[in-house]
């Protein structure tokens, strides 16, 4: 049975539509990441589930119970806020006990739950401190602890790691991954950070322009982006989309011609593609490599070199002005201004139709 189900949820602020008929099912104990650019409605959707915002229409179900008309406290969800939202005048212990007391949980039970959560989160020594006396990372744990003790059916986290420094973020990410093994609940987190989403989530929900663009496992979304937006948004550096036209032919797979004249044989099935139709050829950096002139598909000039140590991203400009990103070895000797040959791995290329719909290399063969 689905843990959480959203059915046709929509929401506008005044005249601005923010969410347009969003539907989603989350399985029990699943970790879902909402990923999308700023303003795409991630927080709004999360807050609608929590009851902090009311949807204009649609239904929200949690474990077989319709919850969209219930007040936030009665929904069986717990939320971790981006800025923690701890009660500044209460100690850590009181912060965690507050919700339980309001719910009428007996005192010994409250103490037991707090002790348990404090142990797991290693904040036992801080229980009598106030939030103001703690570091950002510690506050984060308290915020998570306050959610855990409620034993909710669903955890909601709005950019839980965005306020932490890089080192702490990586550590907390690992801890979140461990934490979810221990709790018997589904978990939805909002994030800007695709690395966070890719590493933690069972499935990702990519939002843009008021809608869910794609729902799928991280690998699924990376390898088979549903449309041009998802293709460009997920993956770093972004996928290159090169304008191209479908060449006529009888092959099983589509052959396309780039604007500059070069031809690329893909493994995207032909059927459904119209001869001569304009498409975009989608290429991830790892599918474009530097090659000697005779083996190259294209000639280009290097405009930027990004050295990451283990590999190098080469930003190159084609004769017709198109920018393409290639990946080279870490010790690459290329420099800005060099003329290089680019070799395209057509087997891994994607095609996007004029309306953005993605088509991918046939996985079966």
């Amino acid at each position, binding site marked *: 049975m689905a843990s959480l189900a959203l059915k046709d949820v929509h929401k506008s602020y005044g005249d601005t539509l923010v969410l347009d008929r969003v539907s989603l099912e989350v399985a029990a104990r699943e970790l879902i990441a909402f990923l999308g650019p700023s303003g795409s409605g991630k927080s709004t959707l999360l807050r609608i589930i*929590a*009851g*902090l915002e009311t949807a204009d229409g649609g239904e929200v179900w949690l474990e077989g119970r319709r919850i969209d008309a219930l*007040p*936030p*406290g*009665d929904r069986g*969800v*717990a*939320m971790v*806020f*981006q*800025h923690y*939202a*701890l*009660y*500044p*005048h*209460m100690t850590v212990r009181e912060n965690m006990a*507050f*919700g339980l007391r*309001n*719910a009428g949980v007996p005192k010994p039970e409250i103490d037991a739950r707090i002790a348990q959560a404090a142990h797991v989160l290693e904040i036992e020594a801080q229980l009598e401190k106030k939030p103001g006396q703690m570091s950002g990372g510690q506050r984060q744990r308290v915020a998570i602890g*306050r959610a855990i003790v*409620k034993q909710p059916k669903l955890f909601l986290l709005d950019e839980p790691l965005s306020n932490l420094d890089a080192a702490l973020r990586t550590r907390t990410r690992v801890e979140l991954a461990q934490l979810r093994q221990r709790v018997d609940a589904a978990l939805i987190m909002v994030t800007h950070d695709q690395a966070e989403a890719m590493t933690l989530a069972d499935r990702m929900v990519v939002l843009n322009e008021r809608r869910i663009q794609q729902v799928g496992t991280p690998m699924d979304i990376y390898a088979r982006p549903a449309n041009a937006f998802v293709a460009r948004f997920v993956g770093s550096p972004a996928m290159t989309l090169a304008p191209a036209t479908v060449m006529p032919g009888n092959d099983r797979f589509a052959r396309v011609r780039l604007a500059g004249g070069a031809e690329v044989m893909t493994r995207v099935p032909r059927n459904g593609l119209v001869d001569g139709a304009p498409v975009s050829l989608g290429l991830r950096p790892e599918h474009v490599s530097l090659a000697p002139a005779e083996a190259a598909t294209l000639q280009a000039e290097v405009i930027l070199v990004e050295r990451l140590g283990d590999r190098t991203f080469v930003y190159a400009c084609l004769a017709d002005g198109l920018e393409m990103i290639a990946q080279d070895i870490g010790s690459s000797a290329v420099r800005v201004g060099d003329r290089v040959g680019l070799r395209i791995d057509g087997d891994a290329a994607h095609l996007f139709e004029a309306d953005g719909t993605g088509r991918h290399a046939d996985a079966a063969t």
Partner: protein
Amino acid sequence: MKSGGAPRRLEGLAFVAPFLLLYGVVLIWPLLMGIGISFHRADLFGAREWIGLGNYATALADPVVHQAIGNTLLLALLIVPPLTALALLLALALNRATRGAAVFRGIFFSSSVLSVTIVTLIWRFILTPDAGLLAVAADALGREPLPFLSDQALVIPAIAITTIWWSLGFPIMLFLAGLQQVPADVYEAAALDRAGRWTTFRHITLPAIRRTLLLVVMLQTVGQLQLFGQAQLLTGGGPGGGSRTIVLAIFEVAFGRWELGYATALAEILFAMILVVTLLQYWLVTRREDAG
């Protein structure tokens, strides 16, 4: 690190010196002089005769002073708690970003802009038994109009209500400023923690505005213990001294009877009273803060 202890301190002093000087000349010096004068039999024309604590002894035995102190304390008690509670309630109601709330904030603040003269005029209009607003209303209901300004038992509450109406704006503003310090997500967290209205107020709002609350109570206490204009203009302290406040008594002694020494002694007594009451309030609140 470069340490410039002494020169830096001198530099700082140079910045505050002009203010300190002014403060000393117009505040500290008269205060000390006042204490000096209170030990004399003195009039406004320069006659001075040392009588030690004579003025204070007179004050302790003076029934007029007793009555004035009683009136003043009663007024403070009738004004400060209801005023604080009312201002807090209104601030809670007006603490939202709607247009209506903004309009009401303006309306409530507008009374504070008026001078005491206008305020008493308005309230005289409302309170006078022959043609006042309340009298007309009582008449319409077929009741006898109450003599608010000439009945010993009614005059203090009448002044208290006038003062509350006049003083409401500023505490509301202070409370609104305090309330705006509480981040919205804390209230959202409380909603998810099943906190009802009262629990939220008691455990989230109140602790957050505790300092503001203390400030309002202290400012109002200091202000209302010095209540003067309303009493002077509404009733002149009457009937039978029933609404004479300490400052009004000081005023009468100094500018009616020209007894400057006695008047300054009364002023010192009032000063001590204010100091004790406000320090007590401060101690009561901050002590609990340290404990909790």
